[in-house]
């Protein structure tokens, strides 16, 4: 079993935990979250704007406002996310 593990993971890994890899992977996981937050917020705000346009017959006013506002809000949320979690990971 150890030999199979060694073949897959390399000699240095077997019998020794993956010390220090958590932090690097934490940065990676955080970067995937940044993109998704921006995407979800922009999409949500643009969809809300489109729905409002349909109700008030103002296409594409609120769609544009929603898209731009969502992108701005998403950027602000990303800034907050990065500043908080990078500091925690750097501690």
């Amino acid at each position: 079993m150890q030999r199979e593990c060694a073949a897959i993971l390399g000699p240095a890994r077997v019998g020794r935990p993956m010390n220090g890899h958590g932090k690097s992977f934490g940065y990676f996981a955080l970067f995937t979250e940044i993109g998704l937050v921006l995407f979800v917020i922009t999409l949500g705000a643009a969809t809300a704007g489109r729905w409002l346009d349909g109700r008030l017959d103002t296409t594409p006013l609120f769609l544009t406002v929603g898209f731009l506002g969502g992108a701005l809000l998403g950027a602000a949320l990303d800034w907050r996310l990065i500043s908080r979690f990078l500091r925690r990971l750097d501690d």
Partner: protein
Amino acid sequence: MTDGRPPTRHDGVSVSSDQNSLDREVQFTSDKGSGITLRVLVLAIVGLLVLNVAALVFLDVEQEVRSGQVCDKVALEAEGYPACFIKANLHLPRPHEVWVMGKPVEEANHGLVTFEVSLTDSLVTMIGITALVLVLGTIAARGKRDVPGRLQNFVEWAYESLHAFGSSMGGARAARYIPLFAAFFVLILAFNWSGLLPGISQTSVTRAPTSDLNVTLGLALVAFVVFEVEGFRRLGVRGYLSKFFPVGEFRKSIGAGLVAVFVGILELILELIKPVTLSMRLFGNIFGGEVALAVVTGLALAFFIPVALYGLEIILTFVQALIFSTLTLMFILAAIESHDHEEEHMGEESMDALEDARQQSPATS
């Protein structure tokens, strides 16, 4: 092992000279080790191909149930080779109901969100995989010995690795949540890898649980409840809510209060969006991978393309399981961090910056 002579690099596995040491350094040779691995790898690929072909031949009858259409002779003549196979192998994002309690909701009334108490294909697989993981875990934990066997050795190595992984990210504060982190990782990994088993995604009663948004949303909501409960438990109701509604800042000044309220709103949105991003990321990656695999398997009669895709999917699904559990751990640690601690930290950073500026100014002047 070495007949009394010192271990050499040709002995396969060699243990360091201090046999009593717990920190065993295991090295493997390139000759023997890679020979065995290559044989195992070739056998795994051949086995995968055989199972894949068997699943394609015997389980193809359920194509219509899964994708809503079948690529028979008439459809093949009408649509042509690639389009017909692609359409027939596309999976619907909606899970297939195996059993429905009461009267089923009519097809026309199915919306984006439909409430229906039912047992779906993803739930059946989830229950099966969870039971399997529990049984394996119980077997591994039951036969614990001072000199570990192969299974115990592997389980201990895996848990120690996950423990070190989580601890290096969150330090001592993370230790309490490592079992939860490991449980999420193992369970999601088993869910993800179940979809790669030939046949699982080709029947109408089984499907990778994480390729269903209902399951990933359920997992994300469990994680979300843990963040919130831990936040309230560690900081108290007032302390935790002050992160999102920092009304106390108005006592300092109106300007500081307004800024704090704006940051509080950002924090609240970030908190509420966590289950959405966690579930969407996992669902999107696993569902997309499964569709790609099904289409390529249906299309490629040159079977080595699906095998290459399988290799890629094994790595990607592993990474997704690790991302979900890592973010869960990070969000729990964020929830139990007090607002004051954050402010103190920001204050320290500002003081450091001021100090640096002060030290630099005499030099520049």
